[in-house]
Every structure is written in C-alpha cells, then in structure tokens.
C-alpha cells in the first residue's frame, strides 16, 4: 500500500513540475504580449492625439475662412438671409405648361392611348397592370 502512495506521489511531483514549467513559460509569454500591447496602445494613443491636433490645425477657423474665400463665392451670412418656418412659403402647385398649352389649342387630352408617342409614359401604368395577370 505505501508503495502505491509513493508511486502516486512521484507522478504528482513530475506532473506538477511539468505543469509549473508550462504555466511559467506561458506567463512569461503572456506578460511579454501584455507589455507589447501596452506599448502599441501607447503608440496608437500618441498617434491619435497627434492626428487630433493636426485635424484641428486643418480645421482652424482662420484657415477655413481663407480657403472659403479663395475657393468659393460664399460671403458672410447676413441677417436677412435667415428666415423662420412661418416665413417659408408653401410649395406652389406644379404648373403643367405644355399640357395647358395643348388644352388651349384644343388638342385631345391624352386620354386616348393612341394619341401621341410622347404619351407612352402615361400609358405604361395602365398596360403594366394588365400585363402580368394572375396566371402564375
């Protein structure tokens, strides 16, 4: 019986040594990874703050104003250019000038399908609804 215990003890000892070895080297490897990642993060952060500074430098109002003056026709906003909702006029009804003209000339209103080739588009919806019937 004691020999069995000895045997178990030896296996446990060897096993734990192997395990410890592995854990130790894994830890070293991981902490190297952590250090590397930390370094990378710090580098990225530095890069971000540099880019932030550069972004703001490029977007500084003075520079934008110079560019706007050089490259666009826009001028400074005047107060009369600002309007409230109430001052915006309603959308006007669209005027079909050609249709009106045709009517005044006494032409047929495009009700008959064969009138003009120009009215083909008007025709399309009606024929299209006929086309794919419920055969399927």
């Amino acid at each position, binding site marked *: 019986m004691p*020999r069995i215990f*000895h045997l178990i003890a030896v296996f446990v000892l060897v096993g734990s040594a192997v395990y410890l070895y592995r854990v130790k080297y894994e830890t070293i490897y991981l902490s190297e990874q952590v250090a590397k990642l930390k370094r990378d993060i710090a580098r990225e*952060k*530095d890069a971000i*703050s*540099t880019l*932030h*500074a*550069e972004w*703001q*430098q490029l977007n*500084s*109002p*003075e520079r934008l*104003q110079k560019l706007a003056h050089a490259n666009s026709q826009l001028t*400074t*906003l*005047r*107060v*009369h250019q*600002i309007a*409230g909702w109430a*001052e915006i006029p309603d959308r006007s009804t669209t005027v079909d000038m050609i249709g009106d003209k045709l009517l005044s000339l006494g032409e047929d209103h495009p009700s008959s399908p064969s009138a003009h080739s120009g009215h083909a588009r008007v025709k399309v919806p009606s024929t299209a609804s006929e086309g794919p019937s419920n055969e399927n």
Partner: protein
Amino acid sequence: MKIDHRLFDMARAEPLAVGPDVLLRPSLFVRIFQSLFRMRIHKSGGRILWLGFGFIVFYGLIVWKLAMLALYPGEVQKIAFPSEATATARPDILDRNGTVLATDIKTVSLFAEPCKVLDADEAVEMITAVLPDLDPRRLREKLASDRCFEWIKRELSPQKQKEIHNLGLPGLGFTAENKRIYPNGSEAAHVIGTADIDNTGISGIEKYIDGQGLADLKGAGLNIQSDDLKPVALSIDLRVQHAMRDELQKAIEKYKARAASGVILDATTGEVISLVSLPDFDPNFPAEAQKVDAINRIVVGTYEMGSTFKALTTAMALDSGKFTINSTLDARAGIRYGRFKIGDFHPQNRILTVPEVFIHSSNIGSARMALGVGIPGHQAFLKKMGILDRLQTELPESAAPQLPKRWSELSTITIAYGHGLAVSPLQAVMATAALVNGGYLIPPTFLPRTPEQASAMATKVISPETSEAIRYVMRLNATEGTARAAAIPGYFVGGKTGTADQSGKSGYDNKTVLTTFMAVTPADKPRYLLLTMLDDPQAVEGTYGYRTAGQNAGPVTGLILERVAPLLGLVPRSEPPVMPFPTMVKLGAWGTK
C-alpha cells in the same frame, strides 16, 4: 569450478527451498522496479548522504553567485530604457463645444551622457552635420564636461532622430517628451495662455490649471500620463471667438486704430463666450506673448470707459429713489466747477428727461444725477457693482482699478460720465450685465457655468424695475440715439456708445480717443452683452469726419453681432416683442408714446 557450481546451485536452490512460494514469485521487471523503492537502512544511508551533498553543492553555488552579484554590481549589464516623457503631460483644453484649443503631442528629444562620450570632437562634428542649427562651440563644451546629463536638442523630428540614431555614437540617447500644441494659432491666445518647453503653464488658463493641483502632482514626482487627466473645457466658443477677432482685425485696418478688443459675456451666467484683444500672439511661440503690445486689454488693461459709464450713473440715480424715469435735468448750460467747465458733445441746451439724457449722452445730465445722489452714495453704489475692487477671474492676470486719489465732488461729476476712474473692461461689462439682467451681479468666468450655479453665486444689486429702465433706455438709444449703427434688425439690440479722450503726458488731450460700444441683445430679455473697444481710431472715409464711437465702434459691433448671433443660437424675430417694457409704459416714460 566446483565451488562456483555449488554457489550457483545454492543461489538457484534457495528459492526452491521455499517451496510453494515459487508460484508467487514476481516477474523480473516488477522486481527491478520494486528494488528502486526498497527502503533498507543499510542501503539508503549512502544514497541520502550523496543526495545531501549534491544539494549543498547546488545551493552553495547559488549563494556564491548571489554574493558575487552583490559585491560587484558593475559587472551586470544594465539595460537602459528611455524614461517616459520628461516634460509631463497636461490636460487638453477644449472650447465649450469640445473643439481642441490646446493638446499634447509626443516629441523626441536628444540628450547626451557626456561621461560616456568617447570622442567629444568627433561627436560634435557628426551631430552638427545632422543638426546644423546647433552651436558647435557650446555643444563641445557640453560633451566635454564630465556631467552625466545634458540636453542636446529638444523636440526633434522623426527624420532627424533616425539620422542621429544611425550615427551610432555612444553616450547619446533619446527620450519621449510632451510638447504643447495650440492648433488654432492666435485664436483665444489671451484666455488659453501658454506653457513653456517643460510644459509648465506660464500664463492664462494654462497657469490656472497648474494652480489646480497639477503642479503639486508633478512636484511629488508622479509621472502623469495624458490619459490620466480630464480635459478642461472653457466657456469660450471658438467660432464666435474667430468671427469677433476677424471683424476686429478688419476694424483696425479700416479705422487705422492702434488696437482693438472685444468681449462677449453671457449676461445670465457670467460666462465669457469670447475675448479678443488685438494685437495678440501665437501661444505656440511663447516669446511672442512678452510683447508689450500683446497684453490682455480686456482683463489687464484699465481704461476710462467714457459714456458707457452713464448706464451705471443712470441706474444709480433711479435705484437711489431720488430720481424716476420721468425726472428732468437742467442741461441748458454747462456745469462750472472751479476752473473746469463740463459741457455736452451734442448740446441740447434744454431741460432733459432721464431717457433723453441717456440717448443724447449728456454729460451735464449725468453729472447732475451723480451730484443728486452724492459722493458717499456714488462710492457705495460703484463698490456694490464691483467697480472699485480688483476683479479676479480664473486667469492669473488681473488689474486693480485706478481710483482718484481724493474723491472730490469733481471726481463724482467726471466719473458720472466715465472719466477719472479707470477700470478693466471686463469689470465694466460685468457691472453692465447686472444692470440689464434684472439686477444680479455675477462674477465673470472662463469656465462653463449653468444658470443654476450662476444664480447661486449672484448678488442682487439693483431692483428689477431699475434694470428694466436701463434696458429701455439702451433700446431707445439703438432706435433713436447714437447706437443705431449696431441695431441689427431682428435681434432687438440695445446699446451705448462711449468716446473717451485718452490722458496723455499733460493731462487729457483730444488728440487720441478710446471708443467703446456696449451692446445688449435681446434688450427685452438680455442674454448676451457685447463690448467693443477701439484704441485711437481715425476719422476715415465714411465716418463724416468723426471718430466717435457711433461712427466706428458702433458699426463694428453691428458687424460682429450679425455674424455671431446665429452661432450663439439667437433667432432673429421679424416682429418686435409685444410690450417689452411694461413698467416704462405704465410710468409714461419719455419715448414710450
């Protein structure tokens, strides 16, 4: 042979003699394995001894090595890492919308350990080849010394760093440092201030931040990283700041002024939205800030504010109860005082009501109001309005007002129309804000503040009725009086002009003037106060030969207002407000009918 044979037989025979045991005999492999762990004292004694000896040798070696390491540490190769950033991190400074005003970027600096430099002459030659702007003589002195640390060059470009690195010189090293960057250049320079090459704040908010504990942390030797620090937000709006600066720059050109400055204050919270003082400086080059001309005129300069002070005088007169909005003042002739005679710039030569005194900017009328209140009352009122004491803000810079040496009746007369008492413009703006916002004096700030925080620290200085009267006369001045140039339609602007003679070597001369304009918008429910100041503007084309505030500071204020109002979220109204001044109408004040 025989004996051998016999021995062999014995050995063989012995187990046989055991008899039945032979059947239980273990296999050869098991026996060998068992013998490994057979604990027999006569056998194990020797083994334990050997083992013990082995351990003693092994640990002895470790102790020996430890002792050697402790005794001769010089043999150990020390690996040097560049220390993290010598110039420590500072928090970012943002404007009220979160736009970056100041931030840190990492740069690399070159240092030398002269005690490790082998050949100083060779090193000098090679370094100056890469960095031609270094002085070779000074560099040689540095490298030939026996010190162990010298800066060679701060803030290298990555390209130069690589070139220096490739020289392969011993005793040179690089270290990462933080460098302060102000991406908007001169914009808001007076508020932000500057930091020196060691990233220590030396003026403006930068110095204020150091005073808030950052310097203590550094002093304690803590290595501060930029992400440990919360950004500092200001009350400044960069867009408004730029618009104002741009317009003031144009004003300097147009009116050939020596300097221009302006400030926008939120009258409800005391936040400074924009502060411009021209000429200014670029905080990226801290040396520029030392120019005499580049002082912060709004905070550090003190000026006799001229007629804009009449708002204070009028409020004092009304709030004292000795005058009402309908009181009349005799402006038929100037006031004689000793050898002085006080007259009006736009003489009316008749009896004026209080609103008329204001819109005609009558010195005589204002002086009579102040005399009616009396010297002690005048002093007490100005004291209450914070005019007689040094105004402290977050900015480390401040200026004490210059009071008359002896406050005589003449002092009261002149101070009534803004001469004889020099105050910082920010102080005047703070007092005027209290006059129009319902009577609450709120100390101005450069940090964001909510209306609740503001009302918690506000002191009530005048009655709401007096405040309404001041708003009324300022609005009246923008429709009928000298402030018309700034009355942008839709924003219901109120205002007051001021043109002060500047005192030269021999007292006042009327060669140079300081023109000011104080605007409030919207006048029925004040939100913003805008002050514009032009130093020594000239009469130019389009000003009809005048150089008074109504011809220069007024129109400039109008331009600024028109440009910044949309940024400030003010909506122009097509219809004027209904009954903006009910009390004035009830009292039947001049101009309401």
